């Protein structure tokens, strides 16, 4: 655990010392704000819960993109600059490296996601919306961020450059996103499989509406576990290749 925290601490400092983290967070906040104003609020009268639902709908996209952008450098950059040797020649285990990197990315992503809270707060003050709806929405957003960050961490672990890592992340994430399209044309039992793996359609809509379903939470946590484990196994196996 100590090793993981050491890696996370340095990685966080790297985010704070570079423009990249600030730029991604600023871009997400600007885009979220514009989308909130233009579409979620819109010009037509709406129920507060509908505004909140649409806010979480738009925030899903920006959170996914930010997760990819913030994780693609995690391990690939160390490999590009040669600093991966520092980790490789230390007694740190692969899971400590991956866990530490992932933890730091999650701190930044959580900060970014929670920084959008002023928008639901405006609706809460001026309209009528429950705490539970906002809590469920943010739980969903954080779970999505955690899942895509795990995919990004895996992509970064297996890639030699940040660009390749970003591309691999996009391919895997988009594959999960379009599963619902495959589910529409597939025959049983594949329809259930494709439907289950749909990152947005099957598992996120409930959070948007203020519902927290255990199977959705388990799905997102499973994605995190599988991709972090794959990343960790890949890093550990490098010594033997």
């Amino acid at each position, binding site marked *: 655990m100590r090793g993981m925290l050491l890696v996370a*601490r340095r990685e966080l400092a790297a985010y704070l010392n570079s423009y990249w983290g600030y730029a991604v967070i600023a871009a997400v906040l600007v885009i979220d704000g514009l989308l909130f104003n233009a579409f979620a609020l819109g010009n037509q009268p709406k129920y507060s819960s509908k505004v909140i639902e649409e806010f979480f709908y738009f925030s899903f996209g920006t959170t996914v993109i930010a997760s990819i952008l913030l994780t693609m450098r995690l391990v690939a950059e160390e490999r590009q600059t040669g600093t991966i040797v520092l980790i490789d020649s230390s*007694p740190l285990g692969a899971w400590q490296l991956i866990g530490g990197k992932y933890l730091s990315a999650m701190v930044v992503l959580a900060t970014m996601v929670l920084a959008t809270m002023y928008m639901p707060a405006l609706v809460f003050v001026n309209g009528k919306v429950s705490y539970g709806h906002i809590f469920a929405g943010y739980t969903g957003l954080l779970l999505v961020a955690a899942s895509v960050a795990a995919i990004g961490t895996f992509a970064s672990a297996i890639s030699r450059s940040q660009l390749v890592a970003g591309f691999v992340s996009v391919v895997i994430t988009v594959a999960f996103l379009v599963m619902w399209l495959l589910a529409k044309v597939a025959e049983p039992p594949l329809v259930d499989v494709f439907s289950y793996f749909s990152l947005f359609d099957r598992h996120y809509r409930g959070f948007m509406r203020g519902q927290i379903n255990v199977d959705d939470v388990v799905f997102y946590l499973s994605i995190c576990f599988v991709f972090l484990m794959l990343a960790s196994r890949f890093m550990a196996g490098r010594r033997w290749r």
Partner: protein
Amino acid sequence: MIEVQGLTRYYGSFPAVRDASFKIEDREIVGFLGLNGAGKSTMLRVLAGLQMPSAGTVRVGGIDATLAPDALRRRIGFLPEDPPLYREMRVAEFLRWVGQVKGCTRAEVEAELPKVMETCQLTDTANAVIGELSHGYRKRVGIAQAIIHKPSVVILDEPISGLDPRQIVEMRKVVRALKSFATVLISSHILSEIAQTVDRILVIHRGRIVAEGTEAQLSGSLGDGARLAVVVRGKLGACEELLGKSELVDGYELTANGELVDIAVTLRGDKREAFVKELVDAGLGVRQIQDSMGELEQIFLELTRAAGAPAALESKQLRTPQGRESHDPKEADA
């Protein structure tokens, strides 16, 4: 003690290191000498625990690299050719972080930090941002990160590459200082550097250890005699007549230099005293005698030739500084 037995390391189907076996005692400075691509870096990376052996065993202080890799890495400090540094960090901050990552407590790192900074001559740059340091200083920070956790073995891959002459001299001092508390392994293809820094040399060629020992031992293992650079006062013709008929001489080169004659000579066996006596008996005034400047280069060429290297390649890459032709038939072959 480092014990390597039958070490082999494959990259795919290519054996970068083949069946290497050797022992290194504590507090020795040992140089790995070889051409580019000979397998030096792979050997060091396996010894440092960065890569696992494909076959064979590596033990450092009794710890097996395959069975207990984490314990092994705690005892080893490693500096690759390009120092692995986080350029945005400050020197002391970076060393504190590395020390903790390598298993030391914060208190242990704080106790060790001033000594390490002094050993690596970094005291004045403790708060400097690493990215703003010169290449020489970054190399020193690289060595500092390798020793901050008090390892018993320090492995330096090409530590002087890219340094200017003054930095090389300073780096030698730093490397020698490491010997006071650790075994030091250095790789280099710069022969003169190896000769000046290490206690013992392991010659690696095409992944195999083809020879090991001190420079003198390696020279002796060739079965040849000494190679000497001699300056005498006398006539060129007299020198030529003497060397031509001498049974001690295997090959020679003469250069007239005013009243003096420069002789580069290879003896049959280490018969330096008898050779000097021959010179004196022939009426030649011996002004200076020393081991040939290119001796280590010669040793290396002989050893790698014996191991089956392409002679033209070796001759090109390891040509002696003088670049002269020789009457030595073995040199002529190269």
